[in-house]
């Protein structure tokens, strides 16, 4: 039986700095699956991810047409409807960027930050969730004795794993990853791949990747972005 659809995109067009990145493209993504988005550099794969959590709205000179519907609690909602709270959306749709982007805070604060933003005040609960998230990305043992040190002191691979932990701490239903292993060595990349396979039990994952062998290893489906259109491969 086909897993239910989680994201439904209908006739989506996106323009950035006068350049058409997406042209009336329609596609859907299944629940609890890993979809790899591939395509030549500069075609707008990262930008496409940003249309799913409305992050492009933070950039100047962008415009979007069409609908993006996500199923929350069994009901599809158009995330571009006026009454749809963008902050709430971004807590349900986590994102990890290509280059690790730790905030200039301690390791603990970085990971706990989304919980605090969401209004969580219970310190013991926050501590437990931080530990759980760091253990999931296999970083806990490496950082448990230096949680109050700056996150900038971590290595590139550790920073990326911390960013994934941070994106996962709110237990989002969707996870967007923009080339998450591009700054990691082989071992680090393998750990992330294992993690993604584990996470997909409870999460719909969209990952932009240039590594075809990686795509083959983890993706349930491969979608190519070419000339503004998303097509299954």
């Amino acid at each position, binding site marked *: 039986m086909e897993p239910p659809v989680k994201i439904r995109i209908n006739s989506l067009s996106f323009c950035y700095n006068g350049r058409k990145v997406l042209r009336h493209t329609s596609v859907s993504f299944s629940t609890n699956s890993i979809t790899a988005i591939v395509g030549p550099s500069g075609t707008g794969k990262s930008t496409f991810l940003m249309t799913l*959590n409305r992050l492009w709205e933070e950039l100047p000179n962008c415009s979007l047409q069409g609908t993006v519907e996500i199923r929350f609690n069994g009901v599809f909602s158009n995330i571009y409807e006026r009454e749809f709270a963008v902050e709430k959306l*971004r807590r349900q749709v986590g994102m990890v*960027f290509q280059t690790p982007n730790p*905030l*200039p805070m301690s390791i*603990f*604060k970085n990971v706990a930050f989304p919980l*605090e933003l*969401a209004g969580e005040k219970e310190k013991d609960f926050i501590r437990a969730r931080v530990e759980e998230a760091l253990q999931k990305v296999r970083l806990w043992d490496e950082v448990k004795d230096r949680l109050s*040190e700056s996150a900038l002191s971590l290595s590139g691979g550790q920073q990326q794993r911390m960013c994934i932990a941070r994106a996962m701490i709110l237990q989002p239903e969707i996870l967007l990853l923009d080339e998450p292993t591009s700054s990691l060595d082989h071992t680090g990349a393998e750990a992330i791949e294992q993690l993604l396979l584990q996470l997909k039990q409870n999460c719909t994952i969209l990952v932009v990747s240039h590594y075809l062998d990686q795509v083959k290893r983890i993706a349930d489906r491969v979608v190519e972005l070419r000339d503004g259109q998303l097509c299954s491969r």
Partner: protein
Amino acid sequence: MMRFLEKVLPLFSWLCGAVLVAAISSVTGYLLFKGLRGVNLGLLFGTTDPVAALMLRQQVFDGLFPAMVGTLSLVLMSVGWAIPIGIAAGIYLAEYARGRTKMIFNLLFDILAGLPSVIIGLFGFSLTLFLNRHVSEALRPCLLISSIALAFLVLPYIIRTTQLAFESLPVQSRMTARALGASRLQNIVHVLLPQAFPGISSGVILAIGRCAEDTIVIMLTGVVASAGVPRSLLSPYEALPFYIYYISSQYGDQQELARGYSAAILLLIICLFLFSLAFLIKKGARYRTLYRP
């Protein structure tokens, strides 16, 4: 030619730096040479008992203690007015204002930055006259009016440094917290503001220095030669820059001039104290906001 420039340019830069250090050292050295001998309790409290003066039980008539208190109060009050307004305006310009609104505000703040201090002084003076005629006759040139006028003088420094500090933050910093579900305000308060602290604090330090040295604004708005320690915000007050100006232009003998040099050293000490305070607050606030687990 390029190779010649490659060698000469660093040398020239080093030389400029050295000239600057030499200039600052010679001015400070000259000041210390001329005035350090006079810096003692007598300079501050004259013949008054220091403890009684510090407890405000006795007025000091022949020492610089009232001028020190006046200067310190004036700087703290002025910067106290200017910091919240300046930071808020800087954040508005960097994060919210767009298009024509931003252009108009930028132009207005540029004009404010370019106003000569005598104009700000006249504004303070006119404000006093207006308040005296229309609000209460008790309102005369005083510490409150001076601090407001000085706040206007230093506002552009704080606005501009805040705006620049925010605008120069990398786009990635701006996007990270937003991607994690931070609202615009949460992003500003928890992420951007702590990162912009170093930039903002340099604006505050500039503002402190400007408030401490300005003479013309306070001459028109409330400073007097002898008033004692200000008893309220509506009192006239004494201030070190005015004392230094007064002594250097009307000294009777070399001893009086030496007191002027000593007063200048006191002013430097006050500035140093305030700069250190600003630095410690910056460091403490950054640590508290960013690193405390």
